[in-house]
């Protein structure tokens, strides 16, 4: 065996070892995710019901019409810990006709509310951005209350690869 050959062998061995490690890592990740992310069907239904309840608390008995509200969220997100989320409401934002409040809800987090905000005609434009946490792939719902008392809604689906609440603690 020449010096060169010996070098190759060790390199191959090293690569093989690295491959085995990577596979092992993947196996750990695969087995870990379902265990950590387990939300049973019953739990999911309960959380959806909680969202409906949270929406009812804001809206009351008023009718919610779909439209005017745009939820801008990336369709595929790797990390559920920080998901950029923009809500835009189509409104002239004048003293006579403006958006009074925007409420954002989620379906699958432990708590249905994401944020609620109050605006007025001084906002000039009904557009807000923030970064949110999402535990699982789901639909984000936004409800806007207009100055005439009507409620409008919009929603956007989002797929999360790694949900919030799964990160390692130090």
């Amino acid at each position, binding site marked *: 065996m020449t010096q060169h050959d010996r070098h190759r062998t060790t390199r191959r061995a090293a690569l093989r070892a690295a491959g085995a490690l990577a596979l092992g890592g993947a196996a750990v990740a695969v087995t870990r995710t379902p265990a950590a992310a387990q939300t049973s069907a019953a739990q999911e239904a309960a959380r959806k019901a909680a969202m409906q309840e949270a929406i009812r608390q804001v809206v009351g008995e008023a009718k919610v019409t779909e439209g005017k509200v745009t939820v801008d969220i990336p369709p595929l997100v790797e990390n559920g*810990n*920080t*998901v950029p989320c923009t809500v835009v409401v189509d409104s002239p934002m004048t003293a006579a006709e403006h958006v009074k409040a925007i409420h954002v809800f*989620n379906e699958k*987090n*432990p*708590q249905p*509310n*994401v*944020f*609620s*905000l*109050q*605006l*007025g005609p*001084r*906002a*000039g*434009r*009904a*557009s*807000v*951005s*923030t*970064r*949110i*946490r*999402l535990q699982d792939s789901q639909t984000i719902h936004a409800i806007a209350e207009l100055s005439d008392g009507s409620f409008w809604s919009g929603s956007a689906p989002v797929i999360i690869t790694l949900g*919030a*609440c799964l990160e390692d*603690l130090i």
Partner: protein
Amino acid sequence: MARTLINVPPKAKRGDVISVKTLISHVMESGYRHSTTGAAIPRDIIRSFAASYNGAEIFRAELYPAIAANPFISFHTVATESGTLEFKWEGDNGFAQTASAKITVE
């Protein structure tokens, strides 16, 4: 004291819609996580954010644990007059922080 980062255009024309961006350093601990020993980590979040323009409130937000750590909030307002924009964050465990930014309106 939490660090804050505010972005308000220093100059604007009267009547312009300006974009205001705010960021504050905060863990926003959701209260749904557990430590490595299994103990629940208590909730520690910022619950409310308010912005005022020369003393008049123009924007208010209620935040929940679903807001990511280091809350970033961006909104718009109409530049009406020169003055100060004041921002106030309030949260769990008596957390309170204020920040301000000046704007010149021509």
